[in-house]
């Protein structure tokens, strides 16, 4: 288990570096896909099989395919590369990097990464079924946030349709 986690964690670091390191946009996007797949494997190792499937279907499968689509359509000539980083970009990078490092440091010092174990132990989840336990939680305890989110998504869909219709007219 620890060995597996070490391998996946190393993969996550390498792909995360790839997301910001590659000079060709399509490789940046693909590194992000690799990163999301690694995250899905981490969910799997934590017994969260449904989260694994949702992560792969929604993020790696749907969102990132759109990203790759757009990159390929914006510059079909595959030799387009990003230019060298300018001075202001370095400055932003350093500022936000320091903020993020400070956040991580606070978590580590306060031992905030070790959560309390709740009622959903692997045995309980396996007895009910992974999808069933997530579904029950979503549609009983967290019903209101789920419904609010669905309204939000509906607004986004209506907005997208409006924008597309306006261009046709």
């Amino acid at each position, binding site marked *: 288990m620890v060995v597996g986690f070490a391998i996946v964690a190393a993969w996550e670091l390498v792909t995360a570096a790839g997301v910001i390191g590659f000079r060709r946009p399509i490789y940046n996007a*693909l590194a992000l896909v690799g990163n999301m*797949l690694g995250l899905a494997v981490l969910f799997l190792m934590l017994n969260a099989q449904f989260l*694994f499937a949702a992560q*792969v*279907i929604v993020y790696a499968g*749907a969102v990132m*395919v759109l990203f790759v689509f757009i990159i*390929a359509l914006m510059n079909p000539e*595959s030799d387009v590369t990003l230019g060298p980083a300018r001075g202001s970009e370095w400055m932003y990078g350093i500022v936000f990097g320091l903020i993020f490092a400070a956040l991580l440091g606070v978590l580590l010092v306060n031992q905030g990464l070790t959560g309390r174990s709740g009622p959903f132990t692997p045995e309980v989840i396996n007895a009910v079924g992974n*999808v069933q336990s997530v579904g029950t939680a979503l549609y009983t305890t967290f019903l209101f946030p789920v419904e609010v989110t669905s309204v939000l998504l509906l607004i986004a869909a209506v907005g997208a349709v409006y924008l597309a219709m306006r261009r046709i007219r």
Partner: protein
Amino acid sequence: MSLEVVVVTLIKAAIVIGGLLTGFAYLTLFERKVQARLQQRPGPNRVGPWGLLQPAADGLKLFFKSSSTPSGRDRFLYLLAPLISVCAALASFAIIPVSGPGPLRLFGHSIGWYVMNVNIGVLWYLAVTSVGVFGIFLAGYASNSKYSLLGALRSSAQMISYEMALGLSLVPVFILAGSLKLVDIVNAQHTWWFIIPLFPAFFLYLIAGIAETNRAPFDLPEAETELVAGYHTEYSGMRFALFFMAEYINMIIVSSIATVVFLGGWWGPFGILPGPWWFLLKVIALLYVYVWLRATLPRMRYDRLMALGWKSLFPLSLAMMMTTAIVVVAAEGTL
């Protein structure tokens, strides 16, 4: 996880991969033979009796062909794309239970007729195929050819659109069976196959499955008259064979899932044949439908195809899902 479990799983995976590759080889022969008969001609009949060694001859030919590559390609992605396609196709078969809990014993353990019996069941298939889209898209992008890029765009847009209808048409089955595990779904069909109460869902699944695998009459990504061969225009030799392999294995998988989910899996009437044979017979029957459609129907126009997916299949599968849910709740008397 003990060592034995790992070894048993690896052995089962090797058997499944071997079986799928053989199935792919003979599916090409099956398709050519059936299509030939439907068109009043004999089909391949020179290599071996009834042309039975034709797949071996084809394989050898493709293996020894020189692979020509386009000059402006993206080297890494050009090699990666066929691998993604084939791996995604092979991996999705892992969840399919070929037979019931029969006397299958290895190392003193009773083991199931599947590579893994995961909690999320069919979601595994949907997850793996959604990654498989990258294989097709990257092939078109990395080839540095307009035919390839257009074919890849069409193909991935088609797969993403029809995956919605495909996934939703399976939801009524989950509602009736009360589980996502394929083994539980087959066991729930011991008396009634789900095709009987859920025929509309089966029909929707079949159409979406044909579009999902880019087969005729929905094979627009490789419409020869406009796009040469679509996303694999610039691939030749063994690399082309890998895409071909992925397409045919995907056909086998869509048929297998239809068998398991709607046609009662390994259960057959009268108990005259053992489970795996029933499974095989049903899969072959569905594959025959694939070939039959290809030999019968003309190709659709692309905008019609997208309209069919989004404006007909998607709402219909949603309606089917709602109806099933209401009927099940009403039958339980909690409405």
